[in-house]
């Protein structure tokens, strides 16, 4: 055994406050943690938890209105707050590095990548050539295969994943002792995220760097870190090993977070999520007792009055809860009780379809230059949606999953008529829908509604909730203003909001409340079909879970069919009876959820499944996609996926469009590889993964 090395980073009782007008809001209160060399420490929390503030305070790089008002940050024993600016610059240069959330904005748009990387590597004294060759080497380390081209590029010429690799290369340039990663994969697609996480994991093992990994995603943290701290409203509520996190978290909030995130394959009707009640605490209105008490299912009178201290548990963790001993002893459960109300009517998938698309096509013309017009070059087009045929059965949910650029949002917009389709047909029951909204009459609009992506933009900031809900009731349902108001109140209750919200404006609502109002609005006309376009993606996990459950309940009550669109395979599989997978404008696989999640599946679906970060930390032998999503202007010929396919056969994939293969009744995918061949390789891979997970003791 090595003797324990001294911590690289030690944070002692850190408190950070922001000035806002006359107020001073403590965004981080009395947080302590330490990270040893080679250790990866995860910091988990939802918005407002103070996790990014903590990361910036460690860097000594708070915004101008932020200040460390208590405690200390020590790097190898040295208190960073006492360092003069010049020495802090040395620390920034050599010892602490930050990989930020938004790679695009974090690179200078008007300098070449190579120059920006050189800057981070410069010692002084070396020649430009030496410097550049080191930069290129650094790019190779982050698995960039053509470093010369990347070094000569400007940031806007690279994809988000590539930009993040560059920033990681920059951060590791001088072998720092501490690397802080602040949500480094949040804005990236899942397949890119998986590749970046692999990279970080390997680099950490090679360099013995101490890591502080900040994220809202427990799965990501669990795949990477040894130890995890959970922050809530600026306080650390629990600190535990990843192993303990998987087996038995003690704090009700930690348990709530775990119970709020759907696992792939978890179904609403079978194994519902257990969301945390209420809204995230606000810094200007903190509860007097335990910060989590207002939302806690175990809260008792002392919890509301007395703030609990952080206490050490028997297995070396820390927890801030009055009732942790009862939880540890198994007398009460940290998880909330299972809701009894979710009833899923699993109607048999009949032949009738509520909504059907047949050969749906949407192309956007690319503007031609004058010269091109004169040369009569035909206009180039973006093939956003290219021959999509899907159908949604009445009272059932079809999940449409794909990464950004797959065309799923354009599909939704063509269905509701916000974008006019270029070809194909959309039918609502037996009515063929006109391409444009203006040509559809009120009866159609009433039966087909949509919930939009971003709740902050989906409500007019100048209208009250009551006004927003009453309009469709009056216009589409022909109610009188008085009737509409009564009905609006009823709608609010249906989405579990009190009628007092009728007089509020969107500025007074939280994100989750806004999304509830937009859902209420789209249910105003009691639609037969509801399109949900990334409707929960912008929400915090604890809020997201309650909205997912709300949608399930509303479907059972109202009997609407859903087209649920998301990049999140787990969320889709939670809600959907059937799943369609989309890649570069085309459907590549479609079928009942249970079948789509198991082999044989399309190689792209396989990659998507493999990329989902799992709490159980199973990662080895994963499928990773090389390269970036090709342009939809000139999509690859043959099979569109051939440029990235891990199971590429050869020329047949490059030259011939793949046929639809029937894996099981109702389960089809588009590939040259036959179901039994595909199943043979994929089943082995899946079983290996499952075996390892069981051995690693994944109990959840």
């Amino acid at each position, binding site marked *: 055994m090595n003797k324990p090395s001294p911590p690289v980073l030690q944070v002692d009782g850190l408190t950070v406050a922001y000035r806002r007008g006359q107020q001073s809001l403590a965004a981080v209160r009395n947080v302590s943690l330490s990270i040893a060399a080679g250790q990866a420490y995860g910091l988990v929390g939802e918005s407002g938890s103070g996790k990014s503030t903590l990361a910036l305070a460690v860097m000594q790089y708070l915004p101008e209105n932020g200040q460390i008002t208590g405690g200390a940050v020590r790097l190898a024993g040295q208190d960073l707050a006492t360092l003069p600016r010049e020495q802090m610059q040395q620390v920034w240069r050599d010892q602490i590095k930050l990989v930020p959330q938004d790679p695009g904005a974090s690179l200078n748009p008007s300098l070449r990548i190579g120059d920006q990387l050189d800057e981070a590597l410069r010692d002084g004294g070396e020649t430009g050539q030496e410097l550049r060759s080191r930069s290129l080497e650094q790019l190779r380390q982050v698995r960039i295969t053509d470093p010369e081209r990347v070094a000569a590029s400007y940031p*806007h010429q690279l994809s988000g994943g590539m930009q993040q690799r560059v920033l990681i290369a920059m951060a590791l340039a001088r072998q720092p002792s501490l690397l802080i990663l602040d949500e480094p994969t949040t804005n990236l697609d899942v397949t890119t995220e998986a590749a970046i996480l692999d990279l970080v994991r390997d680099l950490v093992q090679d360099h013995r760097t101490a890591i502080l990994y900040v994220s809202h995603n427990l799965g990501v943290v669990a795949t990477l870190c040894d130890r995890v701290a959970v922050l809530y409203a600026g306080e650390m509520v629990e600190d535990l090993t990843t192993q303990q996190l998987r087996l038995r978290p003690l704090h009700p909030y930690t348990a709530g977070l775990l119970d709020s995130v759907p696992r792939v394959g978890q179904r609403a009707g079978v194994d519902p999520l257990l969301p945390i009640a209420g809204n995230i605490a606000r810094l200007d209105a903190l509860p007097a007792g335990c910060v989590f008490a207002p939302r806690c299912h175990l809260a008792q009178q002392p919890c509301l009055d007395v703030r609990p201290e952080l206490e050490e548990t028997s297995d070396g963790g820390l927890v801030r809860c009055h009732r942790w001993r009862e939880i540890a002893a198994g007398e009460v459960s940290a998880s909330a009780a299972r809701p009894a109300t979710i009833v899923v009517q699993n109607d048999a998938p009949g032949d009738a379809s509520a909504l059907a698309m047949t050969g749906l096509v949407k192309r956007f013309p690319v503007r031609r230059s004058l010269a091109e017009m004169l040369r009569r070059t035909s206009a180039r087009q973006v093939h956003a949606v290219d021959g999509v045929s899907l159908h949604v059965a009445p009272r059932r949910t079809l999940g449409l999953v794909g990464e950004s650029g797959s065309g799923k949002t354009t599909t939704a917009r063509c269905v509701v008529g916000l974008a006019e389709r270029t070809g194909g047909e959309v039918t609502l029951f037996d009515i063929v829908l006109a391409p444009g909204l203006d040509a559809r009459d009120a009866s159609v609009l009433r039966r087909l509604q949509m919930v939009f992506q971003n709740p902050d933009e989906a409500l007019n900031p100048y209208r009250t909730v009551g006004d927003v809900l009453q309009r469709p009731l009056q216009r589409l349902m022909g109610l009188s203003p008085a009737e509409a108001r009564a009905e609006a109140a009823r709608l609010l209750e249906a989405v579990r909001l009190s009628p007092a919200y009728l007089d509020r404006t969107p500025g007074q609502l939280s994100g989750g409340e806004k999304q509830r109002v937009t859902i209420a609005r789209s249910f105003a006309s009691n639609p037969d079909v509801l399109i949900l376009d990334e409707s929960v993606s912008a929400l915090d996990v604890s809020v997201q879970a309650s909205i997912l459950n709300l949608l399930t309940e509303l479907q059972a009550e109202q009997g609407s069919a859903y087209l649920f669109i998301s990049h999140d395979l787990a969320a889709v599989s939670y809600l959907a009876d059937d799943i369609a997978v989309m890649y570069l404008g085309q459907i590549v696989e479609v079928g009942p959820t249970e079948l789509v999640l198991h082999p044989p599946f399309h190689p792209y679906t396989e990659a998507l499944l493999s990329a989902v970060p799992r709490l159980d930390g199973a990662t080895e032998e994963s499928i990773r996609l090389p390269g970036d999503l090709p342009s939809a202007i000139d999509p690859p010929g043959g099979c569109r996926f051939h440029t990235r396919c891990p199971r590429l056969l050869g020329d047949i994939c490059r030259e011939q469009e793949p046929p639809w293969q029937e894996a099981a009744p109702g389960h089809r995918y588009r590939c040259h590889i036959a179901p039994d061949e595909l199943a043979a390789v994929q089943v082995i891979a899946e079983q290996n993964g499952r075996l390892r997970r069981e051995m690693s003791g994944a109990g959840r």
Partner: protein
Amino acid sequence: MSRYVARRLGFLLLTLLITSLIVFVVTQWLPGDVARVILGREASEPALAALRAELGLDKPLPVQYLSWLGRFVTGDWGTSYSTGLPVRDLVLERAGNSLMLAGLTLLIAVPLSVFLGVVAGLKADKPLDTTISVGSLAVVGLPEFVTGLILIDLLALRLHLFPANSSIRPGTGFVEALPQLVLPALTATLVLLAYVTRLTRAGVIEELRQGYVRTATLKGLPRRTVVGRHVLRNALLPTITVLAISFGWLISGLIVIENVFNYPGLGRLMTFAIDRRDLPLMQAITLLTVLVFALANLGADLLYAALNPRIRLE
């Protein structure tokens, strides 16, 4: 990039075409019978008819416009009603004087205002910035004739540093005219200064908020490298566009300033032409100014594109 240049050139031509149409409508069609404007109220009908035929006024409007434009493009700008002299000689000589004044103004104003803007932006909301910002806000509002009169009173009448009157003789060179150029140029500088300073400041503040500034700082680079190598490179790019727009302000400003200082430039000529309703003169001055302004804008756009990799590499 070549696509971008082609598009810009297309816009330029379109702009010139539309503005010339506007000028044509305003000066040829709006006043009614140009022949009567020239010959006066008492002119006989045959004389009017003859002049109309001579000027092509009896033809349909589109034909009139095209031939009018054609004459302009080929350099035939007509004869001034009030002086009987060829408009082209008159206008080009005065244009030279105006350019001399505009040039000196830009020489003083651009470096000064960019410098002040950068300083204010880097020190945003500190006392120095407040001084510069509120100061420029006050100055931006003062009409040129007020600042001009104040400068004359202070620097010419009280301190006798420069002449109060700038009526240089025709053909005077830049160096020779310099003492008389200083006061009007200073007045025009104040106009530009306020405007460019404010926009440069805004640009710097905007860039300082960007994520790449954090990246650069956290590389451990000294502040001056972060500002010099990273911030200014991006913040000064839009300033090029700002300067092009402010050139339009300068033109407006110079019209008034030339009148305050009695400086024989295009602005002074314009008010002279208006006094005498000298339409050919007004047309020529307007079209020439629009051309110069449009070219300045084109130049700025191209420079911006050449320095901005996001456009250059498209």
